[in-house]
């Protein structure tokens, strides 16, 4: 019975998160039958796409025991620069071409972080705080500071490409085609973390860096790869953001880092490292999106949304902490019994 509850709760409280989402959706539907529509669902999904991709990167860093606050800047750097290059080149690079450029830029910037961290052993928060400023400065001073309203034709077309459209009376509910690559990306990162030596190395590093070194993990190379990967994911998120916004604005995204870290932590990742899952992260992002959406529908002013996310974060982490403490106490009791037996 107890075991069954634990199974349902999941390693990182994924079950609790899923349950919370269910409760919120049910409550909202009771209050306002309009809530539970395909259109609402698609809207929530669309709003979560870019955040989810960023969150995957943050998840990897947090599991590895580090923290990165430069990823939104890397994202907009990659997304904006890609558009600038595409416009400068004259010819339309196509969707895959643009993606490739964004991924390369993102990875390179991530490598800068990784290099500084792996080479000099500096605290990850400080390094990414510093590079965040540098990347942003270079972006605005060298690449451009203008709002670009016209995207290359291929990207502009993708902006309004839907996976499918459900007609509901006069309103059309649209599910953006980006849902497909984002789902694939989640599966890929899950696989990477769970089934590859790299992924287990990330957990090992976050668990205990010196033990990881002694066990033969190439720690410096691992860190380099982790931050490059975060940059890569940020690059993807950046170009996705530009596409979905239908314009390129170099001032956007910067400043959203703490929100995404909050979603990942809410999703059960431990800020101390070594713990976290893709499923939990996705649920964390979705829960925040559901709550925000519910508040909008209930006519709660936008300023309250931040407050709600704040309460959610503190409550969520408190519950996790209390749960862990209770579990430890139970374990101790069991052991003493066994030792005496």
């Amino acid at each position, binding site marked *: 019975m107890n075991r069954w509850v634990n199974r349902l709760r999941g390693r990182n409280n994924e079950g609790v998160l899923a349950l919370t989402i269910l409760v919120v959706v049910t409550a909202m539907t009771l209050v306002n039958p*309009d809530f539970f529509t395909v*259109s609402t669902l698609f*809207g929530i999904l*669309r709003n979560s796409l870019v955040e989810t991709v960023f969150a995957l990167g943050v998840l990897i860093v947090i599991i590895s025991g580090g923290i990165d606050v430069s990823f939104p800047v890397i994202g907009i750097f990659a997304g904006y620069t890609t558009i600038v290059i595409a416009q400068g080149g004259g010819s339309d690079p196509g969707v895959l071409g643009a993606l490739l450029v964004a991924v390369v830029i993102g990875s390179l910037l991530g490598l800068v972080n990784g290099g500084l961290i792996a080479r000099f052993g500096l605290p990850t928060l400080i390094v990414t705080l510093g590079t965040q400023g540098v990347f942003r400065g270079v972006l*605005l001073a060298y690449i*451009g*500071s*203008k*709002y670009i*309203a*016209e995207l290359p034709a291929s990207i*502009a077309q993708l902006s*309004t490409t839907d996976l499918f*459209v459900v007609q509901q009376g*006069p*309103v*059309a*509910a*649209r599910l953006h085609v980006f849902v497909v690559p984002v789902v694939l990306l989640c599966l890929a990162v899950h696989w990477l973390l769970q089934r590859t030596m790299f992924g287990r190395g990330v957990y090992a590093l976050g668990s205990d860096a010196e033990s990881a070194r002694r066990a033969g993990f190439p720690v410096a190379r691992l860190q380099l790869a982790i931050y490059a990967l975060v940059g890569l994911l940020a690059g993807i998120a950046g170009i996705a953001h530009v596409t979905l*916004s*239908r*314009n390129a*604005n*170099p*001032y*956007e995204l910067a400043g959203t880092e703490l929100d995404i870290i909050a979603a990942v932590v809410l999703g059960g990742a431990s800020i101390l490292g070594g713990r976290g899952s893709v499923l939990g992260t996705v649920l964390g992002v979705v829960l925040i999106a559901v709550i925000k959406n519910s508040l*909008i*529908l209930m*006519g709660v002013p*936008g300023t309250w949304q931040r407050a709600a996310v704040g309460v959610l974060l503190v409550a969520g982490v408190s519950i996790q902490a209390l749960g862990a403490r209770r579990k430890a106490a139970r374990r101790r009791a069991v052991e003493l019994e066994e030792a005496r037996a």
Partner: protein
Amino acid sequence: GSGTVAQGPPGGDRNLASEDMRFVNVVKLVGVGWFDRMELGVQEFADGTGIDATQTGADDASPEKQVKVIQDLIAQRPTAIGVVPNSPESLEATLKRARDQGILVVTHEASNQQNIDADVEAFDNKAYGAQIVESLASCMGGSGQYAAFVGNLTAKTHMEWVEGGLEYAQANHPGIQRVVDPIESKEDESVAYERTKELLATYPDLKGFQGSAGTDVAGIARAVQEAGLADRVCVMGTSIPSVAKKYLEDGSIDKIFFWDRPRRARR
């Protein structure tokens, strides 16, 4: 860099030769199409007069950043400063300091600014607003709810546009109601987008939007288009073609309004 005059600021002397004069135009924020267009005008002025005229601004439309930009400028002591204020009130003290140091101050879109040497307005702001709402009313079929956006609640001109529009609607189209007080977009397309989504959720019967900042209509249209309401909701307001083009094409923006008189355009 700053001037090479040994004593005292160049701003103190208004009888300088044009090569020694330096004008700086401070706009609401940099990097948006509207003010890019304005910068073109500043450049043409510089080319035509030989005066070192440039344009600058903060990276978002917050009043305090604009104050900071002007404070930094005062330290460099230019001959004259032009300002398109985000919030005329919050600039008063700073502009006073500039004038105290002998710098000429000229504003645009700020009919109520006190500490200035001159203010430039393009036309009667209330009449302009009335014209936008007249178009909106006919698009909405003469009845229904609409909402209005401004760049900043403190931006005098934007407020005059939406107030002029509201007064016109109340006088001429009794079937048209504005649902809430003007909504602030912070001159930011994505803020306009977010606010529009909230408005559409709160007021499902909304039929019209009036935008004021150049990117307002783009953000509104994006939200309207995503909600599949492009055909039901009328979106109009001040903007420029480069920003609004694609939404005009797909029908999510219905009409934009602007004025534009750079010399190059007349040639």
